[in-house]
């Protein structure tokens, strides 16, 4: 997404040391690059590509569900679509997008010349495309792709064909990439901050990524271990999860959700960080309650490790266990509430303007809070037993993942694209993109609450006629939302081609962080001489 100049950057070089840009031309630049901006750009493009691929799968699902009865695809293929859609969106789209933002912005925000392990950074990225290709090609092997859902529950995963093995290897590779990326981010944040920038002076985006990276290091190996056990159950005669050999399929659920619930916060915490950067800028006020925001993020991360079994209320647990997980889950609302109220207090009596990043941030605030509330509903164990595996759950997590993470990432793209490309985005198109996304998102997912409350189960290609109307509405919304995203692509390409107003170093009046002190577009090398933070 960058259009980094080949020559010296113009402007205030004296502040940022020598800005020599030495790199090979053409494709080699991207294959061999160790520059955090190049790698961030590649992460963001990879993420957008996978977002489109996963989006096509989502539209296949919604086209099938447009009317009751089997319409377009075979039920087995429908299951493969739901499974791959989940895996691709979580591991291929949302997580790499967050890492892309981290690569681009963390060194700029803390005044570091690059990431601590620049070569490992390159490797972390280049592991992803083979993993993505492996997931996609699994559609073409005998038996097709995995159809066990993104949660990969046995015994289905033990019975699936070769596509399951490819999915397991893809998860391994993406996990290795995430772990290396996290080690890089933590070491960068702990060792390469500009003189004077204590941890409690770091921008909140850096804080959220510091904590997210710790979460990743703790839980990605757990997922890797779980899928390795699946692999050995499938091919090497072990019985970790195979009940026929004395194994326990429920153990997989425990292990998976020990990874899976922190994973939700791995996805949402960087989004919190982006929102915490954007709201103060367009409100022209400092972030309200910085320290409490940091502690709230840490609190959310810690609590995320002790609530995993709320995903498994229906598998059978002692009442004490059910109550513990119910109350612990509800406890997460406290630090999350701290954050939401701090964001509101940040805007209170601010000089607010409504540029596209702010609109997406406000959309995030409203819709994520709704997703949080339905999460609280699902945390109530007796209610969850009714709603488990219904469309209510699907609606809930799409409000968190799409309106939460994705809206925050859209906000981040619009906020920082002047810095990345040196060109202001088209404000009118940006606002149209926001309103189309907001309306179609709600048309797609709000009716799914009604479907779930009425008892429509998830992951099925056919349904009773009583669910027909809301499914039709939901499918129309999904297609509208999907096609609206082409507008984002157009806006970004316009910026890359410099079709717009030239961006100044600091295009946003209220911006205060270090990235706005370098010229736009950001020179290839920045902060070789570290700035001093007072």
């Amino acid at each position, binding site marked *: 997404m960058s259009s980094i100049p080949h020559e010296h950057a113009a402007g205030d070089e004296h502040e940022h*040391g*020598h800005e020599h840009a030495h790199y090979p031309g053409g494709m080699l630049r991207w294959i061999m690059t160790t520059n955090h901006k190049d790698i961030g750009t590649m992460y963001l493009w990879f993420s957008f590509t996978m977002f489109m691929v996963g989006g096509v799968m989502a539209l296949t699902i919604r086209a099938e569900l447009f009317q009751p009865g089997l319409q377009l695809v075979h039920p087995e293929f429908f299951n493969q679509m739901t499974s791959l859609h989940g895996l691709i969106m979580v591991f291929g789209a949302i997580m790499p997008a967050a890492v892309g933002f981290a690569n681009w912005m963390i060194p700029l925000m803390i005044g*570091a*010349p*690059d990431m*601590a*392990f620049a070569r490992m950074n390159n490797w972390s990225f280049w592991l992803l495309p083979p993993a993505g290709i492996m997931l996609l090609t699994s559609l073409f092997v005998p038996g097709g792709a995995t159809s066990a859902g993104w949660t990969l529950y046995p015994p289905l995963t033990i019975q699936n064909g070769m596509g399951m093995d490819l999915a397991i290897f893809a998860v391994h590779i993406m996990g290795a990439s995430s*772990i290396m990326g*996290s*080690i890089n981010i*933590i*070491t960068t944040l*702990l*060792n*390469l901050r500009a003189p004077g920038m*204590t*941890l*409690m002076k770091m921008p909140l985006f850096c804080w959220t990524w*510091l*904590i997210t990276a*710790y979460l990743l*290091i*703790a*839980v*990605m*190996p*757990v997922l*890797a*271990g*779980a899928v390795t*056990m699946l692999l050995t159950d499938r091919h090497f005669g072990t019985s*970790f999860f195979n009940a026929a050999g004395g194994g*326990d399929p*429920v*153990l997989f659920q*425990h*292990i998976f959700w*020990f990874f899976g619930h922190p994973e939700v916060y791995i996805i949402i915490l960087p989004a919190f960080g982006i929102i915490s950067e954007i709201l103060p800028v367009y409100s022209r006020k400092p972030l309200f309650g910085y320290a409490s925001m940091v502690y709230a993020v*840490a609190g959310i*991360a*810690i609590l995320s*490790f*002790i609530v*995993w*079994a709320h995903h498994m209320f229906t598998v059978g647990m002692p009442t004490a*266990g059910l109550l513990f997980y119910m109350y612990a889950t509800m406890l997460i609302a406290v630090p999350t509430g701290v954050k939401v109220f701090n964001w509101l207090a940040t805007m209170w009596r601010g000089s607010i303007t409504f540029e596209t990043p702010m609109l997406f941030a406000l959309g995030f605030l409203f819709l994520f809070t709704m997703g949080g509330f339905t999460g609280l509903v699902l945390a109530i164990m007796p209610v969850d037993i009714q709603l488990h595996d219904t469309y209510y759950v699907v609606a809930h997590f799409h409000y968190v993942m799409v309106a939460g993470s994705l809206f925050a990432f859209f906000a981040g793209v619009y906020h920082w694209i002047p810095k990345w490309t040196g060109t202001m985005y088209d404000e009118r198109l940006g606002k149209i993109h926001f309103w189309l996304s907001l309306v179609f998102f709600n048309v797609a997912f709000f009716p799914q609450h009604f479907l779930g409350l009425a008892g429509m189960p998830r992951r099925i290609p056919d349904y009773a006629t009583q669910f027909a109307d809301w499914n039709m509405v939901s499918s129309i919304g999904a297609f509208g939302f999907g096609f609206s995203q082409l507008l984002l692509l157009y806006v970004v390409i316009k910026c890359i081609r410099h079709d717009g107003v030239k961006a100044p170093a600091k295009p946003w009046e209220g911006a205060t962080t270090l990235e706005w002190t370098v010229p736009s577009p950001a020179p290839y090398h920045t902060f*070789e*001489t*570290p700035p001093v933070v007072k």
Partner: protein
Amino acid sequence: MDAPQRRDRDPATRASIRRTAIVLATIAVVFFCGVFASRYIGDTSLAMTVIGGSVFAFLLFGIGRHLRR
């Protein structure tokens, strides 16, 4: 006069970076092995709680010791 050396190439900083990375990589390996171990510990919930508790302690220590730097 020579340009000042980039901070990430300073030997002391490199050593510190390596130390941090080794600690983090070790944690990842311990967690990977811990999952297999949890299969052989009688109570799964207990095993996972032990791991969760150690993460809690790790977060407090890992971040807390840097707070004033």
